[in-house]
């Protein structure tokens, strides 16, 4: 118990205030949600008429919806009138002035994760200009991308510079009517990222790298839209391995991906938001709608996620396989500890012919946490020769944790081949004994076994994040065995 407590303390330093830096100059709106608030958000951002109209439609639709309750998670009712839907970023002066002022426990965590020195300061919330000028770094990247015609910019900027693209694609994958949180997001989304890869272009860098340096946070209701035109390729990473504290309780993001003919999108997520304390107090509610449309033939979308944070995770990155021969992939590691709850999985909707999908889901639950896989594989009547392979494994650590599997398989085509396999097990005494006998201490042994369990997923991550993700797994589970 003492060990566990120690882990919490190092993991969640209380003194560390939210330290995100963004450059938007705006005041906070008062708490509450109404048409006026939606109009004000749109006004602050100087949005064109069509977007305001869309937001209002979403808001009106949201009013007619009820909070979904089907997920295997429990939390007190959220009062949507208590939330401020547009808040100004923290003033730079609020943060610590240099790394010396940052909680040493937090620094130790960064060290364990192997976060580069420069970034540590930034992540810890040290004022940007005190560390280094990231803008210039960002600009070099920006130029390189622009050379190839790649658009990568904040959503709010894209609205002004490329309204035709926004108009065409916004809500085309996740319509505002999709679900409760998607409707809410559509009404009040603050910002996010916009990516457009032109025909035949292979994006020369992981957009992730840039993303982490320049825009660690895009707010509570972020909206990402990625369009990969014919024959293009892009790899995108969101989130960060480092523990981030955030005062916003509810995060309802929407991510839309569109892959045209022969285009490929690889989307990786590492999420390590504040999970709440050991008694389940506080923590982020992460209610996210992520969906990709494989519109073109032979297109491919691959989701990879490592989820270790948030008090509640409620997220199902999906792929709609519309184009013939399109491919969908989902690789997921979800780790829950203490009182965390995760209900996560994917949906693979096969509509085109010869479409295939792979689902690899690894759940690790420790402490008193609840970890559920919920997935849907649907093969429509015209999706001839559709193929799906699903594997979802759970690892249980400690007799108070729980692991669940809720796979839905719906097949309406006799040429479909669908396989689903799931298993549940614990780290055996034999495995631990073997490792310890060879000189590993308990923590390292557990970390090694968990990493082996998750290897299939970790290796799908871009190289530099794979290393950090491995360390993260060990860190998240510290003190949960023994």
């Amino acid at each position, binding site marked *: 118990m003492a060990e566990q407590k120690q882990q919490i303390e190092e993991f969640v330093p209380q003194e560390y205030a939210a330290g995100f830096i963004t450059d938007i100059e705006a005041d906070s709106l008062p708490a509450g949600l109404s048409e006026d608030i939606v109009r004000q958000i749109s006004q602050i951002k100087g949005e064109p008429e069509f977007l305001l109209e869309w937001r209002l439609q979403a808001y009106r639709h949201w009013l007619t919806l009820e909070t979904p309750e089907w997920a295997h998670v429990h939390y007190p009712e959220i009062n949507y009138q208590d939330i401020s839907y547009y808040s100004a970023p923290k003033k730079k002066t609020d943060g610590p002035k240099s790394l010396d002022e940052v909680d040493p426990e937090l620094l130790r965590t960064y060290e364990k994760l192997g976060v580069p020195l420069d970034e540590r300061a930034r992540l810890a919330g040290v004022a940007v200009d005190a560390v280094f000028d990231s803008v210039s770094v960002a600009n070099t990247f920006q130029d390189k991308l622009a050379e190839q015609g790649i658009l990568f910019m904040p959503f709010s900027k894209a609205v002004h510079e490329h309204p035709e693209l926004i108009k065409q694609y916004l809500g085309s994958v996740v319509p505002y009517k999709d679900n409760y949180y998607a409707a809410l997001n559509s009404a009040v989304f603050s910002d996010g990222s916009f990516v457009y890869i032109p025909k035949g272009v292979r994006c020369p860098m992981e957009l992730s790298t840039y993303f982490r340096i320049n825009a660690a946070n895009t707010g509570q209701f972020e909206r990402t839209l990625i369009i990969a035109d014919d024959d293009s390729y892009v790899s995108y990473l969101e989130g960060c391995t480092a523990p981030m504290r955030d005062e916003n309780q509810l995060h309802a993001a929407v991510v839309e991906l569109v892959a045209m003919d022969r285009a490929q999108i690889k989307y990786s997520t590492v999420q390590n938001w504040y999970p709440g304390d050991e008694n389940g107090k506080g923590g982020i509610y992460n209610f996210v709608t992520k969906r990709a449309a494989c519109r073109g033939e032979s297109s491919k979308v691959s989701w990879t996620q490592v989820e270790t944070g948030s008090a509640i995770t409620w997220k199902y990155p999906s792929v709609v396989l519309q184009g013939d021969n399109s491919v969908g992939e989902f690789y997921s590691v979800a780790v829950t500890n203490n009182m965390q709850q995760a209900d996560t999985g994917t949906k693979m909707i096969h509509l085109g012919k010869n479409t295939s999908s792979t689902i690899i889901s690894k759940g690790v639950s420790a402490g008193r946490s609840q970890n559920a896989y919920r997935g849907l594989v649907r093969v429509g009547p015209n999706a001839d020769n559709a193929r799906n392979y699903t594997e979802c494994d759970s690892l249980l650590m400690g007799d108070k944790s729980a692991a669940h599997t809720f796979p839905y398989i719906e097949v309406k085509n*006799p040429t*479909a081949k669908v396989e689903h396999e799931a298993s549940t097990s614990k780290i055996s005494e034999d495995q631990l004994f073997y490792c310890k006998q060879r000189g590993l201490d308990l923590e390292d042994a557990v970390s090694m076994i968990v990493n082996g369990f998750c290897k299939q997923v970790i290796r799908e991550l871009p190289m530099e994040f794979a290393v950090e993700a491995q360390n993260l797994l060990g860190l998240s589970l510290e003190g949960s065995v023994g």
Partner: protein
Amino acid sequence: MKQLSELATPFASVAEALIAAEGTAPWLKKRRQDALTQFNMFSLPAKKEEDWKYTSLWDFSQQIFNHHTESVEIAADEVDSVALLHDAYRVVIVDGVFSEELSDIDALQSGLCITALSESVDQLEHSLGQQTELTKVGLNALNTMLMSEGVVISVDSAIEIEKTIEIIVINTGNTANLATHLRHKIELETGAKATVIEHYVGLTQDSYFTDVVTEVNLAERAELTHYKLQQESNNAFHIATLAAHLAQASHWLTNNISLGAKLARNDIHSQLLGEQSHVTMDGLYLVDGEQHVDNHTRIDHAVPNTTSDELYKGVLDGNSHAVFNGKVMVHKDAQKTDANQSNRNLLLSRGCEIDSKPEMEIYADDVKCGHGSAIGQLDEDQLFFLRARGLDEVSARSLLTYAFAVDVLTRIPNHTIREALAKVVEQRLPKTGEKE
């Protein structure tokens, strides 16, 4: 609203009449009354209910069923011809009425007691309804408020019943749109062993409704082998619940074969309440035409050291629709649970639909649980192998389909029963190859 409340059949008023009837024991009156109140509250589930996501009772709710049996006439040799076994204790229910002359329960082995529910219901005050608490509420209330017949079987401790008990439930078609509400109760005392077959047969292709709830209670070390063979008319509605409590070291083997009915829904629930108890839950469904079959199974591992093994297979042809939902629940502290579940489906034609949902909820860590679900077609290589050896396309397909289906029967310990069931399955298999 998550329920269908507009019902064409006035089930509630039929129940009111039953409650008002003279000669009913006060406790049973109360039981029916409570069930009626519950039924009025919950009625029939609509598709919005998670457990009814893929099965609609709309068509069922629009049927007008008759609760008055007009005639129970049936020739004795007709019963013989439908019976699965010839050397068995036979209990026959015709159109919802127990038939003493057609049954063969006069010379029972000592320690075995078989009675009709209509004759023995008065003694069941404390045992009826003990096992069904966790299954579908509205429909079980419907059964409780209207149950009129059934079979009550009890075996004394340490007695092994050698002969199989076959319950034959026949619909003759003499009464149009007949609704029968049956309640069976099987009780095995400490160390008792028995084999029971529930066999449902429709003699016509008429529409009717069979509603059945079977409760099984196994004491320590008791062993029950249980089969259910459902061969209702292709226009019939068959809604069944089968629920069992297993005490320490008891064993339950159940095999549920669904061949008939327009709409068949089975809720099978096993609660492993004693250590070392084990359940084998197998099933096979062969559907064709416009048939719809829905099997919902649930296994509760409530204590440590229990095991379960489940295999459900389905063959779908025509425009049929099959649903499988298997839930394995490992409760807190139910350590050393070993649970295995598998659902396999063979799709033979365009137009059929399968919805499979194998679920696990696990609240203990030292467990070994796995499940799998697969959906596919006949293997082209295997077909080629058989064709190369001279079998024509149709025979080769039939043979492979048979091999796929009959797999479920291999775990049946009794040779005679296995052969008899294999024969029934063989006759029911589609005879033609796939029409592309």
